[in-house]
């Protein structure tokens, strides 16, 4: 019984979810293609986890419709569960089982063929051969994440839903993880991954930014940046703290962010921003330079806009 062939791994329209009075996900419309890595960004509490749970049948949407791997997200949750690999945000394997026992259990749940071999291969791939009999609860955060990922890929799913898989993981492990994800995407597997890291967002084929249950932007990183129409300047030099305070008071300045010895200033109106820069560039030791706005600037801008435009 194979999933019906369709181009989109995820294709949902107008999904909504309330918890009590709280409207947590609003009209979620999302398409993820096979072989695509789709980044899911947004501040804490914006509804990412809730959205992912609706996609894999753990939460029932209040309304809306759509398919995951061709299966209906409301009626065919059993089939979806069998074909999808879901990695929870919080470590959710059994801490009182060993690494091998956890993988073995998961493999049994999915009816993985040649189970013993699949589990052994997964342990070897993790490089945990000598610690296979260690309790999962004794692993460090990074290793728990890697174990979770190995567990949700045991049954060779066609779609991976990864909820903040690299939170608290060191840079080397994060890079390895992303190399692995790209390898999988190359084999045609679709990946929806939520993250707070900008470098990770930039490694996605496409991304979506969610705020208060609404998708504020979707597209490739370049498209998202372009659509925000931000202008940005960078300043190097001494006395940046005082300069930052002065800039924040100027009209047209939306964001002032300090990165070590550099200050980034961003705004939407190029003329106003230019005026602000001119007025503040009295100190000759400070050198000004036009730069491309980053994804982070764009996300913060999107968030501020949404918050300002919100009826209170």
């Amino acid at each position, binding site marked *: 019984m194979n999933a019906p062939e369709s181009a989109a791994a995820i294709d949902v329209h107008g999904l909504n979810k309330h918890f009590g009075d709280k409207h947590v996900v609003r009209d979620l419309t999302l398409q993820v293609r096979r072989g695509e890595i789709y980044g899911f960004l947004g501040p804490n509490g914006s509804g990412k986890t809730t959205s992912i749970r609706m996609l894999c049948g753990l939460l029932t949407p209040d309304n809306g419709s759509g398919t995951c791997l061709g299966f209906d997200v409301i009626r065919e*949750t059993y089939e979806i569960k069998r074909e999808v690999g879901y990695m*929870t945000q919080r470590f959710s394997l059994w801490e*009182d089982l060993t690494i091998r026992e956890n993988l073995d259990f998961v493999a049994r749940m999915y009816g993985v063929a040649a189970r013993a071999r699949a589990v052994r291969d997964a342990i070897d791939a993790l490089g945990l051969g000598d610690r296979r009999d260690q309790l999962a609860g004794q692993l460090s955060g990074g290793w728990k994440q890697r174990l979770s990922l190995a567990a949700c890929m045991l049954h060779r799913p066609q779609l991976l839903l990864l909820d903040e898989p690299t939170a608290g993981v060191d840079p080397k492990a994060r890079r390895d993880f992303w190399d692995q994800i790209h390898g999988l995407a190359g084999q045609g597997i679709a990946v929806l991954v939520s993250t707070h890291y900008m470098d990770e967002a930039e490694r996605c084929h496409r991304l979506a930014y969610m705020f208060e249950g609404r998708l504020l932007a979707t597209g490739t990183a370049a498209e998202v940046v372009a659509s925000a129409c931000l202008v940005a300047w960078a300043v190097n030099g001494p006395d940046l703290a005082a300069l930052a305070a002065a800039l924040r008071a100027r009209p047209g300045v939306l964001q002032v962010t300090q990165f070590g010895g550099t200050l980034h200033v961003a705004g939407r109106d190029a003329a106003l921003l230019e005026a602000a820069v001119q007025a503040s560039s009295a100190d000759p030791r400070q050198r000004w330079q036009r730069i491309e706005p980053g994804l982070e600037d764009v996300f913060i801008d999107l968030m501020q806009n949404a918050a300002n435009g919100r009826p209170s």
Partner: protein
Amino acid sequence: MNGNGVSLSRWIGILVKEFIQLKRDRLTFGMIVGIPVLQLILFGYAINTDPRNLPTAVRDADPGIFTRSFVAALENTGYFRIVSRPATEAEADGLLARGDVQFVVTIPADFTRRLMRGEAPELLVEADATDPTAVSNAVSAVQKIALTALSRDLAGVRARTPTPTPTVDVRVHRRYNPEGVTAYNIVPGVLGTILTMTMVLMTGLAMTRERERGTFENLLSTPALPIEVMTGKIVPYIMIGLLQVTLILLAARWLFHVPMEGNLAVLYAIMLLFIAANLALGITFSSLARNQLQSMQMTFFFFLPSILLSGFMFPFRGMPEWAQTLGNLLPLTHFLVLVRGVMLKGSALPELWVHVWPIAAFMVAVIAIGLRFYRRTLD
């Protein structure tokens, strides 16, 4: 793949996982062995208590020499403390009814005369048997002195009697406890309450624990079916229950010499059913409860009526009708009758059936409710 059907391999997977987790959970494991041992020691102590100096009233209608030495012998046993010498039967009854005395010993008017004639005069011992364990040793002490105490006094009078034949016919009336609950009856009660308590509690925590640790989300995201999870979680605890039962039965046999009249296999079959019914209830509780505390509260909410209305605490036939009706819904009520029947009366299955099916029906109903409320999503 077999569609949405139940998968044996998944079920075994859940079973294996539960066994491993149980093995590693020292606290639960300690509880499993600890609770029966503790409760047995408590009840065992109650069974073994040999209370002495029990307040006794003697109404003697025949103040003769034999009466005096009989009463002296009574006091010498150490069980009786003569606190009152009522003159009338009504007065004696009052003492017993108020609980002022545990025993009333009535010595009939013709006591001396009949003894001299070589007849065995009747001696009435009325006991407040609401505390049966307190009474039994004392009563057997009376019977013993009836055999020996008077023989010295009678030696001269009845020289022709070489061997001590019973000189007094002791009649014992156990009052206020028509069922005559004895120490033996406590063992089925201990079995039943321990099983109810630990089985419901442990499985009650099983599912809520998954929820509180966050592992339920993982379990839910796999294709495992509710029925697989529920029954998979029950089976390991069935073994635990059987282990507990065996511990208690061995103790009953060796410490308290409880007889085993019936078939051991039948007894185990009954216990298996009872264990399964309680486990099903526990799993259902944990499907209904939001957290471990709620599950624990539900367990105690069920445990109290089980203790009070099942006939464990009070004689079942002595309860008002509504209480009996309620009691009949509880598995423990039927379990007590069944176990007493098998252990003490040697009953066989056909006679027991009337008490077997209510337990089975209870279990089916509870599983149905559990499946109905099993959370298939995180909503």
